[in-house]
């Protein structure tokens, strides 16, 4: 099963990672890697996660994370890793 990339972009605030990770843990999504930068107060995070142990349908997870992003005030995207690896790796 391919991995999923979750990106979080927006104004930095307390608890962004905690809230996203709480959702993922509650849905049995395993976080394998996290990288982040903060440039001029803007938070840019990428998580590589494995959704194979989760019973939550993919479309539902995309919608839930989108809603969570709205609640925190950031943009959260959830995309299968292939779109990035195909574009940037031969």
């Amino acid at each position: 099963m391919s991995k999923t990339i979750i990106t979080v972009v927006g104004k930095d605030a307390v608890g962004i990672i905690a809230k996203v990770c709480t959702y993922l843990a509650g849905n049995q999504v395993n976080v394998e890697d996290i990288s982040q930068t903060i440039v001029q107060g803007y938070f840019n995070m990428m998580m590589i996660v494995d959704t194979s142990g989760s019973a939550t349908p993919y479309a539902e997870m995309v919608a839930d994370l989108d809603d969570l992003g709205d609640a925190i005030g950031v943009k959260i995207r959830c995309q299968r890793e292939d779109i990035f690896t195909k574009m940037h790796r031969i």
Partner: protein
Amino acid sequence: MISLFEVTETNQMIEQEQLDVRTITMGIGLLDCVDADLDALNKNISEKITRTARDLVAVGDAIELEYGIPIVNTRISVTPIALVGAGACTCPEDFATIATTLDEAARATGVDFLGGYSALVSKGMTPADEHLIASIPEALASTERVCSSVNIGSTKTGINMDAVRRMGEIVKATAEATADAGSVGCAKLVVFCNAPDDNPFMAGAFHGVTEPDAVVHVGVSGPGVITCALQEVRGANFEVLCETVKKTAFKVTRAGQLVAQEASRRLGVPFGIVDLSLAPTPAVGDSVAGILEEMGLESVGAPGTTAALALLTDQVKKGGVMASSFVGGLSGAFIPVSEDRGMADAVMRGALSIEKLEAMTCVCSVGLDMIAVPGTTSAATIAGIIADEAAIGMINQKTTAVRLIPAIGRDVGDTVEFGGLLGRAPVQRVSTVGCEAFINRGGRIPAPIHSFRN
């Protein structure tokens, strides 16, 4: 492992530079629907299309959601209907019933366009071809989603000038039949030379007889991505310019290849080709004209435009071929006037004439596309323009096409609004110098000498 920088770059292309997959097009063979009884034929066609494409739109939506890349259209192409209906249709009205069936099938499956109301007449016309062609104005006026194309020439066969003359009349009649809607019927009618069997783009898509029973093709997009990449290399020499286009085209095409393979797997239908064409939309920043202007032209249409378009088309192919296992369709750059805001603006400011567009078609992937001309333009003049484009295609061994819109009741200086992806077109000046005696000769122009390669 993929890096944050790479992820950000891809998402920036999608969110800010209009990267999308323009179309997933399912080709469906209809030859097994053939029946001598017209009602049975229509029933077979309806059943085959709705069964084969049942999941097409849902699969497109799911891929869009999971990969986060917009899939703008899902479409269907079918076997040229002149072949499918030959045994059952004895008059143009019979063929028009098939157009209605196709329109209903398109609605039932949820696709926005269905192409293949077509005839392949590059060397001659059968009675069925003649009936289908005669029915095109009525078929396009009475349906919403059906697209029609006629191939009137090829490098191997020469140009069927009887068909060219007839298509001049048919384009005009289609404009008149849809005059109330800005002659929009002509936006769904393409006249080809060297039409490919596997084109996923409308209005010229049809499912060639060389194709399998069903197949999935994908058309990518990305003029905005190329423009943004070129903004980073302003003033650099042509080597840098070309490498930038090539690398960007590679990335755009890889997204298309992924979507094509995934759609093929989920639909259980073979993957056909990725069409590399840069397809513009009327959206700001999604313009092929914008790319050419970013290269250094004050406006598209300026001297240098043909050279700029030539290098763009070539570099897109070089980058794209490496990125996809199968490349086909039209693959190059589209230069439609109404669908590309930059092209339409250039026409409005008097920088881009139909003659310059004709020169550009020698080096791009298609032809004179979505160009509004005065409604008084004669059928013979339209046929003359078709003949010129076909000659460019025949001699240069490339696909050329004409999609002209004689805007009934409008003249130079007016604009025609089509809405949506079809955009708006300023009515362009066309030469009024006559060509009737040439067009009315009848017969065929023989294949060129360099076509004899056996």
